[in-house]
């Protein structure tokens, strides 16, 4: 014989009892027997005392003022956070803001071992709600604290409103009444919402977590599709917010790699001079001088960029050069025109200048070979003596690619950040603290 531990105290078995409504005689099933405080007759909607063996009537109606069909039928079972719960109660509540009534639905869930929890639904947005295990910390200096702390997490005040219970069905762990009033204060930290519910008798805190409708449908094995979520709900998580910080960190990483690439190409670029000659146009020479060709020069190595620079000592004048870089072996040519112009002066605004006395152009992907330039200069009719220099270098880096790459890398984080900000603006527009409009019109 062994001296063991005392036998385990097993939780009570779930008790279900069928009774009849004392008002209309309809059958009533009590699923949370012993724990439900009120039960509503599904036939005449009388609210009955579930603790009383004779189901004493708490509230009756001459006629049903409004009805509402729960999206999850009473008695449906579903697994939430690993525990089976039965849907035993349903109520519709509403608040009135600026003359408009906003209604939502609450479902009472029951498990005989875990107790009660709730589901709320507003325009297709669902929340899994449980009573807080600890008292949240709020700043009691103010009538409504703008922040609340629960289990070390900060919640921001979203809205305070007076709610009315409009319609009830099933069992409830409190003495529910149609017309019951409570002041609701919501604090949000998406995807969670911390709610304070104050009645004349008590203050209750609950914590909710946003759930997509499809999860609810899957949990309770409901047919069809859940109602589509309309708008943005107070604690709805922004689909992109969680990625923004990571995205910006990744962007920084990419920017560093881009800088390393730029430095590497800058350091290893040969910038090999292959041709350098000066020419001049004397006064009196025809404005459109006959074209000429340069001495041949050789490009060696791999296919690379070729930079052709032109510098000309023009002062309030211009020179235009029609260039053709011609491969004398293959007949392949790159044809382009470049202008060097520089103007300066002095007027009532002070001194000014525009243009430059030099110009460069990069010819793309030029293979090795023997090349020459065909040059056709053009100048103003009354041109002074213009000396211009033509210089050719191969393997010159193009910094513009890094700028384009940087901007291309920047686009996704900026777009997602903008989307996140827009989402948050839309969320808070429905709160007691709407953001100020970005643009104000005169009519505002």
């Amino acid at each position, binding site marked *: 014989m062994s001296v063991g531990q005392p036998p385990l105290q097993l939780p009570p078995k779930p008790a279900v009892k069928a009774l009849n409504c004392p008002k209309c005689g309809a059958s009533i099933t009590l699923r949370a027997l012993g724990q439900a405080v009120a039960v509503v007759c599904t036939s005449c909607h009388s609210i009955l005392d579930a603790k009383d063996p004779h189901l004493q009537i708490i509230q009756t109606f001459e006629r049903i003022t409004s009805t509402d069909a729960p999206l999850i039928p009473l008695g449906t079972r579903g697994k939430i956070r690993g525990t089976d719960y039965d849907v035993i109660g349903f109520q519709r509540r509403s608040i009135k803001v600026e003359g408009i009534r906003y209604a939502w639905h609450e479902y009472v869930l029951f498990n005989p071992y875990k107790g009660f929890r709730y589901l709320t639904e507003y325009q297709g947005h669902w929340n899994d709600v449980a009573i807080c295990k600890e008292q949240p910390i709020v700043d009691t200096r103010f009538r409504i604290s703008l922040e609340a702390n629960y289990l070390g997490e900060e919640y921001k005040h979203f809205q305070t409103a007076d709610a009315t219970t409009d319609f009830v069905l099933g069992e409830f762990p409190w003495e529910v009444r149609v017309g019951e009033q409570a002041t609701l204060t919501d604090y949000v930290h998406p995807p969670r919402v911390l709610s304070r519910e104050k009645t004349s008798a008590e203050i209750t805190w609950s914590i909710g977590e946003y759930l997509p409708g499809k999860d609810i449908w899957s949990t309770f094995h409901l047919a069809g599709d859940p109602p589509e979520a309309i708008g943005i709900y107070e604690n709805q998580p922004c689909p*992109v917010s969680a*990625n923004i910080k*990571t*995205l910006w960190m*990744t*962007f920084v990483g*990419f920017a560093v*790699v*881009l800088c390393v*690439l730029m430095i590497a*190409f800058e350091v290893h670029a040969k910038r090999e001079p292959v041709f350098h000659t000066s020419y001049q146009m004397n006064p009196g020479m025809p404005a459109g001088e*006959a*074209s*000429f*060709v340069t001495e041949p020069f050789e490009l060696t190595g791999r*296919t*690379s*960029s*070729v930079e052709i620079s032109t510098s000309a000592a023009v002062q*309030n004048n*211009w020179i*235009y050069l*029609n*260039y*053709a870089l*011609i491969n*004398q072996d293959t*007949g*392949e*040519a*790159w*044809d*382009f*025109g470049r*202008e060097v112009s520089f*103007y*300066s*002066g002095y007027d009532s605004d002070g001194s000014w200048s*525009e243009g430059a006395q030099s110009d460069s*152009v*990069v*010819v*793309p*992907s*030029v293979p090795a070979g023997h090349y020459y330039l*065909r040059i*056709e200069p*053009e100048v*103003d009719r009354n041109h002074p003596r213009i000396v211009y220099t033509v210089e050719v270098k191969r*393997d010159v*880096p*193009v910094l*513009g*690619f890094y700028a*384009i*790459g940087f901007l*291309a890398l920047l686009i*996704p*984080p900026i777009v*997602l950040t903008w989307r996140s900000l827009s989402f948050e603006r839309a969320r808070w527009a429905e709160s007691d603290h709407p953001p100020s409009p970005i643009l104000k019109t005169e009519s505002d």
Partner: protein
Amino acid sequence: MFRRLYLLYGVLVLGSVTFAEYRGWSLDSMNQLKNVPKSVRDNPGSYRSVYSSYHHYTGGK
């Protein structure tokens, strides 16, 4: 998922920049021609540049 997509996108961007730089691509626009006759070397006037009708700016402030 966003991060994975962005990683792929970023690698593509960096790869494109590297390839463009290595192959010597340019951001300048120009006309590329094939089979320019060898006689151009001896008679440059026989070549007609596509840019010869360019309208020159003769301004200043």
